[in-house]
């Protein structure tokens, strides 16, 4: 995650000498006057990342492979590699001195046997100034869509097992072929719901 810091004295000072208690990620706020005309000026990019946690899951699956029973080889990279990883971009737009909204999207990604759907990120950040340079910030974000799903394979085990629908990655394990389907990737984004509470104390 990229953190963009505003140059105003008020917010820039928060970045110095603070103690943070974060439930998720730390960030700095931007103090902008909220108006429709100044939307772009009030907006900052706070996240630009190629590859999500779901991408990382698939990258691990990309390693390895197995030999086929009658010769030949399966390489997982043929099914789980991609030329474009899920690009996540998130901005924050300040609506007031103490309130901002997060918004962004993910492009998703696709490989031979899997797909991460495009996603939309929404949320808000509220700030409350306390005494003596202390600040409390609360953020909540959600990611809509962006689910990882995996396609099955059709495996031919010959006389011993026939033709069966299987999990491509687990077809050569001792798992019964039908049981491998239970382990197909089917997961929401890891950051589907994130609540963050940050306490800053400037000293």
């Amino acid at each position: 995650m990229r953190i963009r810091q505003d140059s105003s004295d008020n917010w820039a000072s928060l970045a110095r000498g603070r103690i943070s208690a974060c439930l998720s990620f730390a960030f700095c706020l931007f103090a902008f006057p909220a108006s429709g005309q100044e939307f772009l000026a009030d907006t900052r990019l706070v996240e630009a990342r190629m590859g999500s946690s779901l991408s990382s899951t698939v990258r691990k699956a990309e390693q390895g492979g197995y030999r086929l029973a009658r010769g030949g080889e399966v390489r997982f990279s043929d099914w789980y590699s991609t030329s474009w990883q899920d690009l996540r971009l998130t901005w924050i737009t300040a609506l007031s001195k103490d309130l901002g909204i997060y918004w962004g999207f993910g492009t998703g990604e696709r490989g031979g046997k899997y797909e991460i759907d495009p996603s939309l990120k929404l949320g808000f950040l509220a700030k409350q100034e306390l005494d003596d340079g202390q600040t409390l910030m609360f953020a909540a974000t959600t990611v809509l869509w962006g689910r990882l799903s995996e396609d099955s394979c059709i495996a031919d085990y010959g006389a011993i097992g026939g033709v069966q629908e299987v999990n491509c990655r687990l077809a050569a394990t001792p798992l019964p072929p039908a049981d491998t389907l239970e382990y197909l990737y089917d997961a929401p984004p890891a950051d589907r719901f994130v609540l963050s509470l940050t306490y800053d104390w400037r000293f």
Partner: protein
Amino acid sequence: MSISQRSILILASSIAFGFGALNDSAQAQDLTFGLLAPGGVPGPPGGGGGDGGGGDGGGSLADAVRYSWMHADVQGAWDDGYGGQGTTITFVDDFNSGYVFAGTLTDDPCLDAGTCTALHHGDWTAMQGELIAPLANIVRRDWSGGPVKLKNGFNVLNLSYGMYAAPGFASVRWNKQENSILDYAANGDAVIAKAAGNGCGAETGQTADLCGSTTGKLDYLAWDLIGTEGTIFVGALTDHGSGTLAYYSNIAGDNTTVQNQFLVAGVDSSDMGFAGTSFAAPQVAGYAAILSSKFTSATPGQVVDQLLGTADSSFASYEPRLHGQGEADLSMALAPDKIQ
């Protein structure tokens, strides 16, 4: 005429005991059976018998340890939660005689040092099966009993012994034990992992005239198992992946029928503390159990075909006459033929 002996397929000298019968035309022939054991002090012929020790199947993959004598593929099977559950491996072997010897299958210092009670041949082969397929039901069946009974579910029989006699008999009238085994093999009721024998390169099913106590004799059990649906003959390599036959191991030979039901498996005697095709067969028996855990509706014949059809023959020294179909390869046997 007493002409036969039962022989554990391990390198050693022998002492005879037991009973049996060959039928040459209409005339019944008594057999004399032999027992071989290395390192042990020969004792009185054991009575043994009975229907065999009860199975347990009470092993745990959490406690399973892949010892150095095991193929690495076994660990992969355990990692996926499969250790032969739903399968019974019956070891027809010697569990009661006076012949015991020490080995190093586990890291148990007592066994390794040979300072504690040494084990029977059957205890060692069954231990191999139990260690490879810890979730399988292991049945210890002393070989001097009556018919071998199969259990519910998928059955594997491990035969790390031979029935030796002078060659020349046209047919054999077997006792109830071997008769039941041969029936299971012929009908495809069980996977039969049969140690190929330690004739120092003798052809399986032919007279072993090259070395050892079986010199000049024929393993009639192997002879009658040739061509049966459920049987795999197992020879020994010096180690997994070595491609080098152990000097004592019998070979598949020129008979293409035998070649088509012959595998080899690594027997690293430096790890195990003993040698012999006796200890190659239990590995294949364990593989069969693991394979049946995956293909739960597969018949024994299909498991046999899969193990034979997926053997590794890619090593430079491979010859069908020596290695049959090649080295047993569990990971290949578990894999599909094709996938898309």
